[in-house]
Structure formats: structure tokens, C-alpha cells
């Protein structure tokens, strides 16, 4: 069985700070991490490999810095790693990204594609389903657990807001996984020692041969008009008290809502 795991290296946005004066994100000193939802995707693939045997290919679209992440995937037992990188892909929205990734995936003809539900920088959750559409294969999103897999089908648990469903899909199929119900295993010594001896296949647009109208900024139907941070309001009057004054001000604010 051939499995492709789609992963993204992202800045650790949970620790990010805002430059209040400039209204921009402070990106220096923010470490790059594996996107949390994607770690479940990788762990799922590695578990299938352990149980049933499978060839696990990790694929990422990003700058050359993403190679570090791929080495860490080798250190956990991935069989092959692919980096899709080209200046032409810069500025891609989810549509253009899914075009690019789909073209790369087609070269491998996988039985299963595991992706994370969404990335903590873009937060869109669109790339997975859009790849499934491009490849014309079924998708199951919001997967929390793998129940079973064989040559023909996959059975998973999907998380809705108030209930869960057990769903079965034919293969090939794309699933998007949630963090952190399936924590990613740590790097083991043997695979870590060999992580730098394995090759990383780099695919550029010369390899993928995508029309420029389908990729990068030009290939993106959505564009960013502007970005801004949450505005900091002006002077705020605060009541500095833990006694009557505080309690009375709370009661008066509440009174219109109490019946």
C-alpha cells in the first residue's frame, strides 16, 4: 500500500506576539514546527505501515528550510520524502496550492492520502478537500481515529460538533486528521542516525510542468487586499478595587439583563 502524508512546516503561532506599534506580527525568534494537525496524519500512516506494511511518502510544499522537517519524518520511519519548492509557487492561495500538490501526488499514484485538517498559520482547512477534488477521489475530513484499513477500503471515526460517525470509504481516498488525539511518536535512534543518508526528492515546476496561470500568485483566485492586527483601543477607564466599588459597578452593568 502506498500512502502520501502531506505536511506543512509552520511558525508556532500559539506563541506569537504582536508589535503593537507597527500592527504586525513579530516573526523573529518564533520557532518552526510541524503543523499540529499534520502530526496525526503522519502517525496514522506510520501505524498502518507497522500493522499492515506500507510505503510512506511525506510530501511538503515550502522553502528549502522545510527539509529539516522532512529529516525528522525520516527519523520516525518515513520511507521517502519529497519537497516541492519553486519560486513560481510563492503567493499561492489554497486553490493554487492544491493544484501544485495534486500534480506532485499524481506522479506517485497513492492508495491513501493523509493530511492535517488545517494549518495553524492559514487556518483554512481547504487544501485537503481541494486536492481530493482535483484527484477526483473521495474525502473524509475531521478524522480522529483510524478504525480499519485493507486493500479496498478504509474505516475511520469522524468528529462532528456533537456526535461522531464511523465511515467507510473506498480507496484511493484522502483523509484529513485532527490533533492531538493520536500523538506523533518520538524519533527513534536507528532512523534518526540514518535520516541524513536518505535522499530528499525536490520537485520544481520544471518537474511538475504546471501552467503558470494555475500556480503561485497568478493562479490564486483569492488575493489578500490587506492585513492588520487587532486594533488597540485608546484610554480605558479601569476600576481598581476588589470591594464595594467593584461589585456595585458589576451589578449596575448586569441590571438591564437581570429579570
Amino acid at each position: 500500500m502506498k500512502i502520501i502524508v502531506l505536511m506543512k512546516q509552520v511558525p508556532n503561532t500559539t506563541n506569537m506576539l504582536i508589535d503593537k506599534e507597527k500592527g504586525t506580527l513579530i516573526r523573529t525568534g518564533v520557532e518552526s514546527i510541524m503543523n499540529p494537525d499534520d502530526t496525526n496524519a503522519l502517525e496514522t500512516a506510520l501505524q498502518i505501515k507497522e500493522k499492515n506494511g506500507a510505503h510512506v511518502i511525506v510530501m511538503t510544499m515550502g522553502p528549502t528550510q522545510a527539509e529539516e522537517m522532512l529529516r525528522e519524518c525520516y527519523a520516525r520511519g518515513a520511507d521517502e520524502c519529497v519537497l516541492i519548492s519553486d519560486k513560481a509557487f510563492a503567493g499561492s492561495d489554497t486553490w493554487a496550492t492544491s493544484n501544485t500538490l495534486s500534480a506532485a501526488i499524481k506522479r506517485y499514484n497513492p492508495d491513501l492520502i493523509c493530511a492535517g485538517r488545517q494549518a495553524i498559520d492559514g487556518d483554512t482547512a481547504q487544501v485537503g478537500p481541494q486536492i481530493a477534488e482535483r484527484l477526483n477521489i473521495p474525502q473524509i475530513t475531521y478524522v480522529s481515529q483510524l478504525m480499519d484499513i485493507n486493500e479496498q477500503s478504509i474505516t475511520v471515526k469522524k468528529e462532528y460538533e456533537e456526535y461522531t460517525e464511523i465511515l467507510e470509504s473506498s480507496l484511493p481516498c484522502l483523509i484529513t486528521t485532527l490533533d492531538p488525539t493520536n500523538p506523533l511518536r518520538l524519533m527513534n535512534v536507528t532512523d534518526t542516525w540514518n535520516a541524513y543518508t536518505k535522499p530528499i526528492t525536490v520537485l520544481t515546476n520544471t518537474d511538475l510542468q504546471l501552467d503558470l496561470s494555475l500556480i503561485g500568485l497568478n493562479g490564486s483566485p483569492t488575493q489578500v487586499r490587506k492585513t492588520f492586527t487587532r486594533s488597540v483601543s485608546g484610554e480605558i477607564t479601569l476600576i481598581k478595587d476588589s470591594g464595594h466599588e467593584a461589585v456595585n459597578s458589576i451589578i449596575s452593568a448586569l441590571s438591564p439583563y437581570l429579570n
Partner: protein
Amino acid sequence: MNKDIFVWIELRHNKVQDVSLQLLSEANHLQAQYKVKGYDFDVVGIITGFQTHDVHADCFKYGADKLIVCEDIKLQEASTQHTSKAIVDIVHEFKPDSLLIGASVIGRDIAPRVAARLNTGLTADATQIEVDETANSTLLLVTRPAFGGNLFGTIVCPNTRPQMATIRPNVFEKRELNKASNTIIEFKTSFDSIDQVKLIKQEPKLNHSIDISKARIIVSAGRSMAKHMDLIREVAEELGAEVGASRGLVETGSITKEHQVGQTGKTVRPLVYIACGISGAVQHTAGMDKAECIIAINNDPNASIFQIAHIGIVGDAVTILPQLKEELLKLKA
């Protein structure tokens, strides 16, 4: 020529999801903005389902001018495969200018697939949508958070139609608009005979009896209140309120995840939100900053929560809450 604002009406077991009604109401704001620019757009609800007659009235009540109803046994419950086919076929037939879908688990599953098939742009989790006043077109300005809520972006879809966006529940309000029209257009199309994905079983989640997103008043606590949850619960009880929590508090184990408010928890829109010992990090405030009255109690005068609070109290919640409870009891008496 593309025209009209379409809203996909999400049904689960033939019940309309609130988010769809919220979108219908919001679409009426856009309709008004378009009118000023000289575009006469209708708000059109797309219903995909089976024997959906009972839901039509609510759609008109909350702002639809027209409904396009596509019924088939295959659409009985939303499915990626069949529902997206229905929506895509409707879009091809009716050519809307924009299509809004609620960002529920189902909406976020179907919308990207539909957008890809239509070769159009989709903006996820919008928190604000406006018609672009400056453009000489029907362009929408769609604002959404990124980088974990630290940054906001205004996204546009200039060259393709329909302009698509998903919107989270409770970002907009549903309003009874009681539109005069009750036009229903029936739409029929064909579906694949083979289902790619089969439902084996559906199970409710355990411990899910609490839905804080429906509360009028929420008393919410941060990590520092972990050992004082009794004070929080007592005040909440006096107010008939639900208890909310920051992610930090949930992580201490003093309260379960159903109570979590914020980016990775629920978005709530109560009348009153009382934040006790909550610092106000964006990941939390993104889930509650639309509350009508925000009361914040925190020892730290520099806490970011004070930037969005209507009433800010720099004080000790542990001291204040028992006194508040006393006062509330006195009022009842």
C-alpha cells in the same frame, strides 16, 4: 452576468442549522449595500435534502427572498459527494455572484470541494463581509483571522465567480426579517449511483449536555481560577448563567472542554460575558468579543482583556465573586 447572494442552507435530520439562518440575515445587509451601488440582488437559499418542506418557512422568516430546493433521497443527509454535486449544478444553472456557507464541520468539508470544482476562490472562517464601496464591481471584502487569530486579512476574489466564503456559527446574528416573497424553485439533477463513503454508525459524544453557545450570560474563568471554581459556579447559578473557560483552565483538568471558549473552543455571543482571571489572549477573545456586555476582572492592569471589556475591574476575582454573590442574593430577596 452573475447575480444574487446565495446561501447554502445546512440541514441535519431536516433541522435548519442556526448558522445558515444567521447567514441569510447577514446576506440582507449585503443586499442593502449592493442596492446603494445599483445592484438589485436577491438573497437566495439553496436547500439540498429530502422532504424538506417544513424548513422552508424559517428560511423566508430569516431573510431569504427565494429558495432553490433540490430534493433527492441521496441528499437526505449531507454528503460530500452528492451535496457538492447538487450545489455545483445549481451554481452552473443559476450563476450566483456570491455563495456563503456556514463553517460547521459539514460546511468546511463541502465548501472547498465546491470551490475547487467551480474553479473559484473561497475564503474560510470569515468574521466580517462587506461590499467593496470603491470597486466598480460586485466585489466583496471578506475579513478573516489567520496565524492562530493573531492577524487579520481582508481577502478579495476579483476574477472568478461566485465569490465564496465560509462563516463560523455565531459570528453573525439571525434576525426575523419576514420577507414578503415565498418563491420556491424546484431543481432536479442526477447523482452518482455508487456512494463512495458509507455511514456505518453515528454516536452522540459523551458528556455533551452542555451547550454554552446558547447561554444569555456566561461567567468565564481563566487558569488562575482553577482552585476556585466553586466561586465561579455559585455566581453562575445565581445569574442563571453557563460557565465558560479559557484553554488554560481546561488544561488544568478543573473543567471539561465543552466549556472552552475561543479559537479552539466555541464562539459565543451572549448578552453578558464575565471574564474572571482571563488575560485576554487573542485565542480566547476571538471566541467571545462579540458579546454585548463584557465585564473583565483581573489582577493585572495590563491584561489585554481590558482592551475589549466594557467594564474593566483591576481586582481580585476570588475576593469579588463571593461579594457579588451576596449582592445578587440580596436583590432576589
